[in-house]
């Protein structure tokens, strides 16, 4: 029960919404109360026994597992903030009720998948989240949102079936459907690499691996601000969690690790480069997510390369990274939304600017913030790597910090451009509270971690060297950004590589559809044995229309009958005689 209730609490609220008196109440308070039980579970549930529900679905079992707790924490925190923000910013929206419905559904899926320890229920929550998120993405009902939704849904579906296939195989690999018993057996399976590839791609679509990320820069900006925050901050992590659950990091082997590293790096770089060329701050943030996810992928790859038990530190760092990234990205998205409501240059505008810069710094890993804590843990972990990789990993972390800084500078610049010139109504109280809460959390994340996950805690080294190591990449990034901002970035109508690629794909699909519509398959009669039509056609033959009547008429004649009689009789007698 202690596992079921937090996960299904959002659905409970959803059921309440059927009754009209509750509907408004659920919208205004329910959205942010919904993740509260989950949050308390994440904070206080360290010693709770795993729960198995053999009757539920295909023998559901719920628990944190190795990583679930952190993910549940990220999820609950972000959704809480987003819920609070949403009930304030969408208060006037006519479609707020549908929004709440999809919000709660997606939330349930996202919470559930963090604690699901068996394949089937994990897949269930994953699918619930994926499909319900469509409702959040297309909430605005603009053509842009619909297109984004279409791309998202298509890719999500492809991801779902890939995952499903992987799970079909995976379910047969071990004695049960539990991840912890199944995953270690996977690499040894006959179809091991097929299963892992399917799982990699399936989760990769959610996690924005390069080439599979196409939906991400479209969908995240298309959704309303709170939805973008959870999409980019929490839901994107589901892919990561999936990998962690499915890939036995200790035994999967170097090949996979190398693949993860390469694709992660590519993604990180590509995210930065593509993001530079964008105008919409939310799109830039989405690309930043692609880039950050690339980093996480790379880190996971390094964890695989080093193998157990050396990778413990890296994995801890990865968790911390996910947490920090989630909070920071959430804060940035919410902040973007708030910035739109505030006059440029006003006092509150300055506050907003400060509130935006801080998460940026965290993401870039500036010293004394959570970001540098992440780096610290990771670098410590990197020490266990093979010699060649250690330096590479550390270097990559620094370079990525430059890239992140560069991209986020552009982002800030773009936010600045989108801030309105006139005085506006200003943000709602809920919006501000949510945002402030996230920033506050970011501020205290380091002590928080020390309290909560002592083994992940690395004391911040307040040394000149350490600060320098944190600062120079940022400085490089800022410098590059200044250079770049002189450049005429992102001219009107420019689409970027992703846009071009998508357009090409859509064209191809459209022409396929055209060809499909012209195909003989369209003919309703195609491919079936239509006895009725056959017999009709047969009976419509001129011969068959008049022939039977003519023959029957002949048979009515005495002499026809007579001749037949005589011959048949003779034949009969002859046959009888001859035997």
């Amino acid at each position, binding site marked *: 029960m202690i596992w079921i209730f937090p996960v299904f609490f959002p659905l409970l609220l959803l059921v309440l919404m059927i009754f009209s008196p509750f509907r408004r109440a659920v919208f205004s308070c329910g959205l942010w109360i919904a993740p509260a039980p989950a949050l308390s579970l994440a904070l206080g549930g360290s010693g709770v026994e795993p729960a198995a529900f053999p*009757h539920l679905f295909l023998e559901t079992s719920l628990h944190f597992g190795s990583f679930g707790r952190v993910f549940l924490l990220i999820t609950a925190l972000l959704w809480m903030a987003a819920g609070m923000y949403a009930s304030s910013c969408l208060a006037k929206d006519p479609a707020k009720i549908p929004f709440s419905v999809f919000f709660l559904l997606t939330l349930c899926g996202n919470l559930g998948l963090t604690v699901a320890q068996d394949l089937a229920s994990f897949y269930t929550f994953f*699918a619930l989240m994926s499909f319900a998120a469509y409702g959040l993405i297309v909430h605005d009902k603009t053509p842009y949102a619909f297109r984004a939704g279409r791309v998202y849904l298509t890719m999500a579906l*492809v991801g779902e079936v890939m995952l499903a296939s992987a799970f*079909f195989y995976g379910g047969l690999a071990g004695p049960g459907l539990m991840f912890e018993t199944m995953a270690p057996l996977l690499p040894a399976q006959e179809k091991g690499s097929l299963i892992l590839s399917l799982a990699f791609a399936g989760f990769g679509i959610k996690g924005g691996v390069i080439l599979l990320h196409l939906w991400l820069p479209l969908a995240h900006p298309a959704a309303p601000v709170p939805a973008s925050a959870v999409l980019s901050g929490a839901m994107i992590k589901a892919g990561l969690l999936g990998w962690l659950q499915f890939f036995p990091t200790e035994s999967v082997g170097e090949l996979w690790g190398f693949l993860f590293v390469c694709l992660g790096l590519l993604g990180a770089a590509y995210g930065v480069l593509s993001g530079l060329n964008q105008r919409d701050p939310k799109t830039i943030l989405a690309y930043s997510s692609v880039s950050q996810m690339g980093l996480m992928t790379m880190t996971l790859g390094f964890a695989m390369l080093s193998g157990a038990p050396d990778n413990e530190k890296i994995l801890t760092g990865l968790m911390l990274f996910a947490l920090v990234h989630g909070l920071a990205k959430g804060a940035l998205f919410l902040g973007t939304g708030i910035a739109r409501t505030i006059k440029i240059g006003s006092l509150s505008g300055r506050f907003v600017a400060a509130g935006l810069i801080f998460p940026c710094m965290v993401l870039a890993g500036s010293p004394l913030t959570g970001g540098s804590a992440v780096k610290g843990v990771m670098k410590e972990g990197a020490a266990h790597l093979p010699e060649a990789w250690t330096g590479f990993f550390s270097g990559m972390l620094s370079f990525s910090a430059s890239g992140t800084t560069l991209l986020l500078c552009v982002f800030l610049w773009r936010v600045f451009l989108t801030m309105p010139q006139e005085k506006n109504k200003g943000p709602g109280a809920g919006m501000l509270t949510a945002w402030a809460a996230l920033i506050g959390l970011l501020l205290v994340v380091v002590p928080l971690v020390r309290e909560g996950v002592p083994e992940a805690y690395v004391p911040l080294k307040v040394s000149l060297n350490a600060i320098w190591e944190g600062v120079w990449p940022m400085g490089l990034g800022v410098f590059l950004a200044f250079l770049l901002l002189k450049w005429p970035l992102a001219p009107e109508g420019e689409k970027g590589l992703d846009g071009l690629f998508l357009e090409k794909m859509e064209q191809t699909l459209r022409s396929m559809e055209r060809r499909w519509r012209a195909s003989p398959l369209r003919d309703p009669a195609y491919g079936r044995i239509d006895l009725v039509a056959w017999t009709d056609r047969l009976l419509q033959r001129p011969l068959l229309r008049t022939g039977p009547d003519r023959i029957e008429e002949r048979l009515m004649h005495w002499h026809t009958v007579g001749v037949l009689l005589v011959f048949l009789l003779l034949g009969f007698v002859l046959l009888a005689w001859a035997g």
Partner: protein
Amino acid sequence: MTFWLPLIVLFSSLVTGLIIFVLPEERSRLRTALNMAGASLKVAGVFLMAWGLLAHDVVYEVRFTMGLGFDFLLKVDLLSLAFVSLSSNLWFLTTLYAVGYLEGSPNRSRFFGFFSLCVTASTGVALAGNLITFFIFYEFLTLVTYPLVVHRGTPKALDAGRTYLWHAVTAGAVLFLAVVWLQVLSGPFDFIPGGALQSMEHLSRSDLTVIFALLIIGLGVKSALVPLHGWLPTAMIAPAPVSALLHAVAVVKAGAFGVMRVIFDVYGKDYASQLGVLDPLALVVVGTILFGSLRALMQEELKRRLAYSTVSQVSYIVLGAVALGPLATVGGLVHLVHQGIMKITLFFCAGILSEFLGIHRIDQMDGVGRRMPVTMALFSLAALGMIGVPPVAGFVSKWHLAQGGIQGGQEWVVAVLVVSSLLNAAYFLPILHACWFKAPAMDFGERNRQERGFITWREAPWTLMLPTLATALFSLAAGVFAGWEWSPLGVAEKIAAGRGGFP
């Protein structure tokens, strides 16, 4: 009681039907009462039988020897129990639905009379203990469904009826030939889990192969295997409760159930695969699954799309019978129930849409989710289930089918399921998108709408909503509680345990 209970279950609808025939048209209360009483009696009887069989291992058997190897045999085993409980429960709900749906329309006595006979036939199909009894009810089903298909009497309906009849009667003739031939060769036999023919070594393999082909052709028409599926989309012209029953319970299921009986209980899966007859059938099944989905994708009419979806989905059941792994058997069996409840939900909703909003085509469905949110929520639930989104029941079937395919080394099963799921999504998701997210294109027949964009939430009457709600929730529950011992899945596992290979 072991003798009478199956007969009570069988006759509860037969007698009801016959009485209803002679009732005058205007006694609608009495008719409804009779209908519901018959349906309740049947459900109660089925539950009693289930209890007896499962808890006490009672053998329910009714046998009339008619001479010359002609035994009329009703026998309750787990497989028949699964099918009969599906049909009895859904009959109950569909009757309720039909009462509301047909209120005030002409010839209701005739309709409900044949409706009851139709269920009698499908009960008989379920309980039949040997091929000849099965055939009797199978053909009876053809006969009593015809008046339902042509119920409206329009030229289109008559055409549909003719198409249906041509297909069904021809198939019946082929089946008849096969059944008689088999009996001539092997002598009379009953269904035996694991295959009755396995032990008869004197039979020639080539004869058995030909007979198998004939049997499958005969049964394949009702279960709408491509290219014998032509009647199904045409028969959509019938009133919604009929389509619901045709597609979800009675007719297509009788065919699929027959295929299962033939493969599991007449030939036996192992023996059939030894004979090499399963592979060609598998080819047909794969073709049907993909072709049905492709065709569904092209339909603009809601009911036709659902019909083609049925073509595709029913073949999952057969897929479960032809794929070798024991889990596939479970998947096929459980899909027998799951497809039924999900598809009947879809048809109930389609019926509500056409009856109250005049919506027949998919392009008319824009924004209908706001007018009838509950109906459309149920529709969405069932549609997602059809696609295979967990935790709705459809996923459970697909899961087992795919794993069965992998178990048996037939990995094409997974590929087929993946492609088919994508196609399912391709034809269902646009509908869901349209009804929830698009702006309403029509005013849904509401005259006094004050302002544009404002649509009142008004659902259909409870007689229509209650069955729909029940089936939708059941399809959800069948998935969510799949692990329960007596869920459809649990029962399917028990059934499969008796039929080869399942540990």
